[in-house]
């Protein structure tokens, strides 16, 4: 205590406070330790945590509806699904505008696939309507062309609505043979100000033509929504006809006159959609779009626990659609059964391994490890040969007269098959931790118990067994957690009733391509494992688990 001054802190040899100096040394040590594990940490983060995180994120991700149908989603916000009536005309028109773009970009089919998960039939509904949407409102365009044939010319529209600089740039591009990049379409400010609906619709059209179709908007007559926009713009603001200079005045004034006389038919998208598919006249598809329009959804998780979202809130799925809770339960129960049989079969083997003379024990150890080193698929296929009705085991039983030939045992393609094959495959994961724990139990304890008068059973049960529990704990955790996520063995020998939840996850990843649902099921499985681990820690205590 010579360094301690009367009222100052303790100082190190160089005069800095001891605490500070110690911290610095420790920090350097920590940094060095961190650098040592950094390669592994980065490897795990990049190749494991990040992809899995990304995959699991899909279970709540739902950008597609808002991205594909932005106008419809905005228009639907005012509609009340509980009213029992379909929405008004503006919503239908918004959907038509969205679908025209989506069809060109081919995203409407992806959207159909997404919404089909929630309401089967949505995919064909969107595909069918996608085919018809191009023709909706055709009568308005025809009426304009009847008034003046110039409206049939694509260049009329580009000249009217495009910025003059763009119009000449586009003409130059066209003249050069379209070899270079197409100049992106620019709206003229006059058009934007005087014909807002027309401009908005045409800007979408031009963008789609240039970016998706790699074509020039000067070569294709625009969508009907543009003609409809023009009619309505001029009807609402007849003065706009004069805003474009004298050359445009006659053509635009003719439309104003016709619009006021009512010779141009009003666009009726409600009727057009209903004609395309009667379902659009019901609130059902609209409420599905509205419910699933947010960018994050609980839909996949609800589906994973056999629930669904409806206009009235969360509701259980129909009886025939409930399958996942049952599969989760089955996975738990079968995994528990497999863990149980592994304990029963593994314990005596581990005891032998720990107590036989080294030479015999080594041989036995090789016998335990040999199947462990054999390919999983080979072992599972071998079980198929052994267990089938015309297989080795049944043949032996029939030969021994234990089973009648016509009543051969059904040992495969059911839960029995799964339990037998998986017990065999997971057995080493039980034996090895048990063995390493038993190896540390001194044999003298048993001898001491017996010399004090205990029977064999008492000596085992009161002295030996309690000391081997950490091994059972470690083996059980290993086997149970491996079993719960097993996939290939149940698939091959489980038949219909012996498959696990992981088989459904694999199905949704590989076949049905419902990755959102697969991610939700996977997340739930992970949560279940973590919860069980926590419960286990509370009951047994994780400190009591020993791997050796």
């Amino acid at each position: 205590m010579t360094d301690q001054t009367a009222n100052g802190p303790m100082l190190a040899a160089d005069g800095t406070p001891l605490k500070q100096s110690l911290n610095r040394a420790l920090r350097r040590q920590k940094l060095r330790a961190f650098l040592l594990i950094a390669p592994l940490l980065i490897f795990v983060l990049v190749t494991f945590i990040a992809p899995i995180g990304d995959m699991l994120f899909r279970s709540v991700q739902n950008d597609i509806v808002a991205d594909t149908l932005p106008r419809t989603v905005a228009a639907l916000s005012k509609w009340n699904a509980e009213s029992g009536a379909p929405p008004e005309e503006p919503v239908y028109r918004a959907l038509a505008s969205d679908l025209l773009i989506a069809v060109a970009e081919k995203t409407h089919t992806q959207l159909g696939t997404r919404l089909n998960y929630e309401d089967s039939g949505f995919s064909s509904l969107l595909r069918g309507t996608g085919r018809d949407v191009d023709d909706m409102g055709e009568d308005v365009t025809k009426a304009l062309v009847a008034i003046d044939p110039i409206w049939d010319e694509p260049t009329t529209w580009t000249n009217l609505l495009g910025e003059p600089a763009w119009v000449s740039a586009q003409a130059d591009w066209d003249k050069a043979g379209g070899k270079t990049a197409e100049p992106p379409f620019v709206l003229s400010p006059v058009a934007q100000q005087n014909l807002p609906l027309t401009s908005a619709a045409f800007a979408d059209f031009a963008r789609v033509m240039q970016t998706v179709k790699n074509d020039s908007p000067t070569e294709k007559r625009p969508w009907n929504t543009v003609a409809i926009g023009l009619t309505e713009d001029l009807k609402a603001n007849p003065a706009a006809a004069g805003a474009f200079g004298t050359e445009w005045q006659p053509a635009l004034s003719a439309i104003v006159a016709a619009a006021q006389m009512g010779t141009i038919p009003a666009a009726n998208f409600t009727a057009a959609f209903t004609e395309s598919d009667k379902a659009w006249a019901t609130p059902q598809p609209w409420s599905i779009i509205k419910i699933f329009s947010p960018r994050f959804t609980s839909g996949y998780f609800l589906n994973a626990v056999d629930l669904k979202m409806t206009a009235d809130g969360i509701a259980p799925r129909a009886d025939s659609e409930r399958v996942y809770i049952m599969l989760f339960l089955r996975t738990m129960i079968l995994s528990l059964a497999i863990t149980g049989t592994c304990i029963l079969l593994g314990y005596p083997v581990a005891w032998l391994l720990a107590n036989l003379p080294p030479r015999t024990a080594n041989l036995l150890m090789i016998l335990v490890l040999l199947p462990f080193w054999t390919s999983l698929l080979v072992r599972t296929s071998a079980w198929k040969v052994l267990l089938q009705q015309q297989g080795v085991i049944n043949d032996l039983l029939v030969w021994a007269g234990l089973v009648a030939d016509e009543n051969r045992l059904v040992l495969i393609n059911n839960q029995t098959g799964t339990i037998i094959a998986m017990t065999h495959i997971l057995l080493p994961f039980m034996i090895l931790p048990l063995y390493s724990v038993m190896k540390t139990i001194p044999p003298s304890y048993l001898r001491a118990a017996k010399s004090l008068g205990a029977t064999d059973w008492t000596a085992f049960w009161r002295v030996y067994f309690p000391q081997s529990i950490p091994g059972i704990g470690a083996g059980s955790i290993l086997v149970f957690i491996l079993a719960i996520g097993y996939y290939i063995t149940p698939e091959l020998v489980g038949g219909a009733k012996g498959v696990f939840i992981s088989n459904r996850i694999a199905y949704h990843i590989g076949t049905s391509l419902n990755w959102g649902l697969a991610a939700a099921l996977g997340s739930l499985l992970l949560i279940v494992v973590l919860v069980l681990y926590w419960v286990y820690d509370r009951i047994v205590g994780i400190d009591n688990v020993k791997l050796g």
Partner: protein
Amino acid sequence: MTLKSLLSATALAMLPLGAGAAFAEDLPPCDNCSDSMVLMSWGGAYQASQVAAYAEPYAKLTGVKITWDEGSNEAIAKMRAASEAGNMTYSLVDVEGPDSQRACDEGLAEEIDFDKVLAAAPDGTPASKDFGAAMINECFVPQIVFSTTFGYRTDVKEWNGKVPEDLCAIFDLQTFPGMRALEKRPKKNLEWALLCDGVSKDELYTVLSTKEGVDRALAKLDTIKDHVVWWSAGAETPQLLADGEVVMGSTYNGRLFSAIVEQKQPIAMLWDWEVFDFDGWVVPKGLDEAQKNRVMHFLNFATDTQRLADQAKYISYGPARASSQPLVSKHATLGIEMAPFMPTNPANQKNYLVNNIEWWADNQDAVEVAFQNWLSK
């Protein structure tokens, strides 16, 4: 000059004299084309038939290096993953009809201008006409027609000499006792169940579109549920039949062909209400220009009339082109006539269904859950 290019130069110089002359004239030059391709297919006997019928001849003629990936049973998942990663590693992918629909719908596959890309028939019929009904969507280049049908053992004592003559023998446990093998999927099984429950072919999908229809089909399947082994890979049924584990079962006709003809098992085929399906190529989106040119060049060669007919020498699936049918001849090594084993043979088509891709695309998810639920009860 390397030895290889020297050899091909010599070969080219000799061509006008050799038998390969027709080949060389058939093959137009390929400008700005890559010199390698990655093809995804099914592996096994099917891929072998593709290699023998057109991949190897093409590689020989052009010197293109072809790498195979045996991933077709999860083709769409793989294409989607590659597309999301922004790195399309497959040049051409072999898929079944419904998967091509999926790829097309998801924007994973290129739309193809059939008459521009594919060769016309020898008589000048444009490709789009020659393929006819096999062109199920604008992304799919069909190669073969296959069917899912039933095979049965010919030596079952309990049947007292009777053999199944129609589909509904599957549901007749009295006359034909024993285990059956069915696919662990609702598709086809539900259709067969309804057909044997008295629904006519025309009403099939109208009935199946209702919940009652699905329940009705499942109720029919319930009558044999305890006598069914469910398979998920096409190779299982021939194996189960050969082992005597089942007495009849559904699988792809080519699998039965090899069990019967090549392995001489006591199995026979039941041609009744088989379900037709197409298998073919899709070109993934996101290929660079040179890859795309190469793939289109290959497609033109690999799906012409003669090459598709050649493929049928190695496997008993029917060519998807009408003009290839008359050219189907004998098995390449066994020397037996292939026509009786072909799903396209009129004698095998007294009753049949064509896979209803549209209906299944829409209803797959809902029906699948109902089916799985039924299975596990």
